[in-house]
């Protein structure tokens, strides 16, 4: 009993000044937020992303029903008929409905695939980096297998063989993107596990799980957050590319699929590719701006200057 209590005290001391974990990081987090906001690019990025999130959220209210429904006369130009402000495609589907519901798909795929990828990557990378030795060796070899296969080709094969649906696309993208996070996490862990506060935590008897989850991961977060932001952007791009190739979920609308079907009409009805294309560019660009700003804010060198 007494020993256990003493351990807690020791551990709390170990988090004290010098060991640098929760207290300093909380203060820094607030400053990160303001640094990001001061970054003019990030402000634009946040605004664009906010608008797209708002669009996705209000889609069922503004454009209720199935966005794939053949709602009107085919090939209406934007503005030609106010019932379809952005026009209709070759089958008479409303472009605005496609854009708004497509935003839901893009964001869902982006966030879910990244979440899965980060979860998998961090778990694998943490184990490798923390334990080192033979496990590390094995895991690194395993990661290398994924790194040597061209990601998009693997993705196309995966989705084509399994039947394409939103969830296979998400899992496919996660499978082709987790390795970056795993490598990064492993590198962070290899550095951080040498830190004094880790030794201190270990010396007072905390288990590996506690040390990994409570001590090291919070400190390894900054680079992971930056990478994850970019991963969301690239997941959205991958989903669009897949859908463009006709490998997306055929039962849900997607910006990439809209470009894919609009492509045949590019000479006569360019807006069918330009509108969804513009939204993909805007979303990916916004995420990249935010990623850049986070990187600037979280990077110790730049933060000090």
């Amino acid at each position: 009993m007494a020993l256990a209590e003493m351990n807690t005290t020791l551990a709390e001391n170990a988090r004290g000044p010098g060991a640098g974990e929760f207290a300093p990081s909380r203060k820094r987090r607030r400053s990160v937020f303001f640094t990001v906001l001061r970054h003019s690019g990030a402000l634009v990025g946040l605004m664009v992303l906010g608008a797209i999130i708002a669009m996705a959220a209000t889609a069922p209210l503004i454009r209720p029903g199935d966005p794939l429904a053949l709602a009107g006369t085919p090939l209406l130009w934007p503005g030609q008929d106010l019932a379809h402000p952005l026009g209709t495609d070759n089958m008479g589907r409303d472009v605005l409905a496609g854009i708004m519901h497509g935003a839901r798909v893009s964001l869902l795929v982006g966030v879910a695939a990244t979440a899965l990828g980060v979860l998998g990557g961090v778990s694998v990378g943490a184990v490798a980096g923390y334990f080192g030795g033979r496990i590390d060796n094995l895991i690194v070899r395993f990661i290398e297998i994924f790194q040597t296969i061209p990601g998009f080709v693997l993705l196309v094969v995966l989705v084509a063989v399994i039947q394409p649906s939103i969830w296979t696309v998400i899992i496919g993208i996660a499978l082709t993107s987790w390795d970056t996070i795993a490598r990064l996490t492993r590198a962070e862990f290899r550095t951080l596990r040498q830190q004094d506060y880790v030794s201190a935590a270990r010396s007072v008897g905390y288990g590996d799980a506690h040390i990994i989850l409570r001590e090291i991961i919070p400190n390894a977060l900054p680079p992971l957050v930056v990478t994850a932001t970019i991963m969301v952007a690239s997941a959205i791009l991958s989903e669009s590319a897949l859908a463009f190739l006709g490998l997306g979920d055929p039962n849900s609308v997607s910006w990439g699929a809209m470009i894919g079907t609009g492509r045949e009409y590019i000479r006569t009805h360019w807006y069918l590719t330009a509108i969804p294309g513009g939204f993909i560019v805007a979303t990916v660009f916004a995420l990249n701006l935010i990623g850049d700003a986070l990187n600037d804010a979280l990077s110790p060198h730049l933060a000090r200057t």
Partner: protein
Amino acid sequence: MTGIDRRTFGKLLAASTFVSADLAVPAFAQTKAKGGTLRVVVTAEQPSFVDLFGNGAIPAVQGELVSIDFDMNPQPSLAERWDITEDGTVYTFHLRKGVKWHDGRPFTSEDVAYSFETLRETHPRRRNTFANLVAVETPDAHTLVARFSAPAPYLLGALSGVGTAILPKHIYKGTDLKTNPNNRRPIGTGPFLFKEWEQGSHYVLERNPDYWDTAKPRVERIIVRVIPDSAARAAALETGEIDIGHGSPIPYGDVERFLASKRFGVETRGYELGGNLHQLFFNLDNSFLKELKVRQAIAHALDIDRLIKVVWNGYAIPSPTAIVPDLRNFHDSTLKHYAYDPARATKLLDEAGFPRAANGKRATLNLTWNPGMAQQRQAAEYIRYALGEVGIEVKILNFEFSTYIQKVYTERVFDIDVQNLNNGYDPTDGIDRAYLSSNIKKGLPWSNHTHYSNPEVDALLTSAAAERDPAERRRKYVEFQRIVHRDLPAVNLVQFQRLTMFNNRVNDHTPYAARLGSDYFDRVYLED
């Protein structure tokens, strides 16, 4: 080596580009100048050029025994004339004399006999055509007698260049058919010599100076380019990089724009042998679709006119029956589509015992579509929408081609399969495989995957295949059409139109015969 490098090829292309912007329609051209290079585009590359295994042919190189005209009647080509005995079992062909293979050897009846006997073993469709062939005799070098155990009224239709490859016996005899180098660099008796093949890019045909019809061919050279992407094909045609493309080379949505420019023309003839049919098949083992009323409701839920408009851009005509209008000797024009009537569909579904659930749905069906043709995808999207309107939720499953075959014909994951199982040149070619109960064969592509089994239909199709009397043969196929129209194992949608798009400088490209776009090019000439 006769190979030309990329730069020379480019020069050739440049040298043969004489497209003048203000080209008038040359309807009454006075000069039918010989020479020039015709540049053709195809959508996919053939794996080989001799149609031994159903892999596609080049009639222009190979030559053909008979030509099939637009009215589906056989006309002389390598066979100058033919006699058929009263009972319809013995065909005697009198072959053209003095015809030479491209390597200089004489063409004889031995070659034809060898071709029939070989294709009976190797070719997926000729296996049926020659199934009853009991003997082939060659009394002399220019006479061939083919004896059948039952009447073969469908025979002549199968003997065109796209149906039956006439093989040079001296090249193939005693060799491995699959690996014979002639498959990749064929010789034939046709108007063009096969010059070279740059795999993945193009192949080149050159005028055969020893062609039996000395007035033909008119162009000096043909370059056939492979461009898999439809937008790229449209661009190549538009910039004058290619002259002509068969089998709907450009998106249907682009056709109007091409015609409006006055530089291009569209030809719809030449595809009569295809019997192009777009239909949807039901999985009759599905407990929901087992109900006739449900299938009737689905038929009533589909607006064929709208389908023609949004999916086919108008390049299709309704085909309410299993045998398309193009097969005019057999098509039953009295049958009409189930009228587009969503209210009636709703009523039928209610009556069948499938009311809408709280979420508005009655059932959920898996829909597959044949990825071999781009329009199937749009058709699938239309059907998903149309059935959704009457409360049937449709989940589209996308598969790439080989997975599709596996999933649909082996695993049968479909409830509705959107398909284009074409009729071919004769009902025996395309109908039997899908409707005979003996063709319920797990894993066999294009077989009876609905599991439709009706002894009456089996008997009709079997007897019609061997029926000699044309009127009686028609009667049996009409009867068959009425039965399947009533039983509804499939909803037949449209006969779609394949298009040939050409630059107006190309003339006489589709002169008289149906070759499914694999043209003979013997009459074609260029106007500059």
